[in-house]
């Protein structure tokens, strides 16, 4: 999980900030350490993503956080062409993937798919998480992207 040489999308995209109420703080702190943290209920062991204050399965408020290894498969994807944000003007297409994590109860996580933005994308293909630190941001943050892995490693 090495950082890419440049950011996948141009500078000036909206920067993520943790919610004022603290709900997603463990996730964003984890990404700064290069760790992918998601929720797992301490009572019933159900996985949960995105974060919420209560476990949807057993209604316990004791929803803990667990590190996952960041391996999954592409559940769905899109290739965006039309620039809806000023920072994307003249940038060209980019790919967003929704990744299912079978080892974490099938929760899904978002991110960009690294590599050629015109590559063929296959639902079900194995991917792994790649951390993209933005240390130069006013409030530093780290994004999580995905890259294709060989099938033999999945």
């Amino acid at each position, binding site marked *: 999980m090495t950082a890419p040489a440049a950011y996948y999308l141009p500078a000036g995209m909206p*920067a993520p900030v943790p919610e004022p109420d603290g709900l*997603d703080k463990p996730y964003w702190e984890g990404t700064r350490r290069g760790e992918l943290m998601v929720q797992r209920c301490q009572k019933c062991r159900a996985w949960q993503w*995105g974060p919420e204050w209560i476990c949807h399965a057993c209604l316990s408020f004791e929803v803990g956080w667990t590190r996952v290894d960041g391996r999954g498969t592409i559940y*769905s994807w*899109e290739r965006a*062409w039309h620039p*809806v944000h000023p920072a994307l003007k003249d940038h060209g*297409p980019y790919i*967003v993937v*929704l990744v299912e994590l079978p080892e974490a109860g099938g929760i899904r996580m978002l991110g960009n798919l690294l590599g050629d933005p015109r590559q063929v994308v296959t639902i079900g293909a194995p991917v792994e998480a790649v951390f993209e630190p933005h240390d130069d941001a006013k409030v530093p943050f780290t994004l999580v992207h995905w890259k294709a892995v060989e099938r033999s490693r999945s």
Partner: protein
Amino acid sequence: MSTKDRTLRGKVAIAGIGETKYYKHGQAPESEFALALHAIVNACADAGIDPRQIDGFASYSNDRNDPSRIAAALGLPALRFSNMQWGGGGGGGSAAVGNAAAAVAGGVADCVVVFRALAQGQFQRFGTAPPVATASGDAALNFPYGLISPAQRFAMRVMRFMHDYGIRHEAQRAIALASYHHAQSNPRAVMYGRPLTPEAYDASRWIVEPFRLYDCCLENDGAAAVIIVSADRARELKPRPAYLLGVAQGSEYRNAARSHNAPLYGTSSFTTVAPQLYEMAGIGPKDVQVVQSYENFTGGVLMSLVEHGFFAAEEANDFLVPDNLLAPKGRLPLNTSGGNLAECYMHGLELVIEAVRQIRGESTSQVPDAELSMVISGPMVTPVSSLILGGEATL
């Protein structure tokens, strides 16, 4: 009281419809509030009532035009009902009618206006990103990846659904072609006189795969309004009443789970709503003669029609061909005014008006003897909603 007794079926009707002229976004010559007033006054004129008989308002999608200000502007003797359906997008279009109907049927108010007004030149457009430097909450998990606009939010739901059932792009194309075809008969339509060919569709640019330009709705300025009164009152008024036979709103299990974690992902959000709708109306999909299905994106229409039981997902490639979707003779005439793609994007309230016109026999693409007319509002958001209108013979 059993569920069966607690029905809205046949208790209220849409007795008046009103619109402004529909404009390209940013081109309305009047303020958004003035547009809303025009639509409401026009709906009263259509119904043949004095606007001062209005005693309630219902809207959706965070409409900016405050009912109290409207009541003051119109000099209403008393305001008895002010309702806003939660949720953005067009999912509240049918629900707002249902909320108004519940108020009238329950004796809370007598004459409720459902309205929607949009002047995007005066406010932020839906299809462009708000000029924000940061994103928090669910947006923090979406925006930094360029997952911002409605088209980008919903493309992956459609991509997954099309993958699961082997649905081809031609199915989406047929939906776009049907809307444009019907708009060519409708002088009110923004795309009147601007037909769409299959070749032009295929050559159009990608917005976000799997949506091309013509898979995406317009954005327009204007306003629309409908008037809800009791069935008995509607019979005393001049227009042919369009009775509300059924209405339902909501979404399925954990539809709004953050970061795209809805357990059922490839959905227009109607899998639990559509059965409620049919149960109240006491009819099935085979009885429906004409459908107005909200097109934010054609792929959402595709899933909406499946979830309302018009065909199975596996049959989508065969069913979704233009001939099946065109009035007057298609198997399921769809979006007969041109809809959000080609008449006007009035957040789907123009679809409710078109459904009423079909019951009155006044559509520019009329389905002969239409007695059962459906509206499906706002696929893929939550809550969504849908309704069924009927003529006198269906009561």
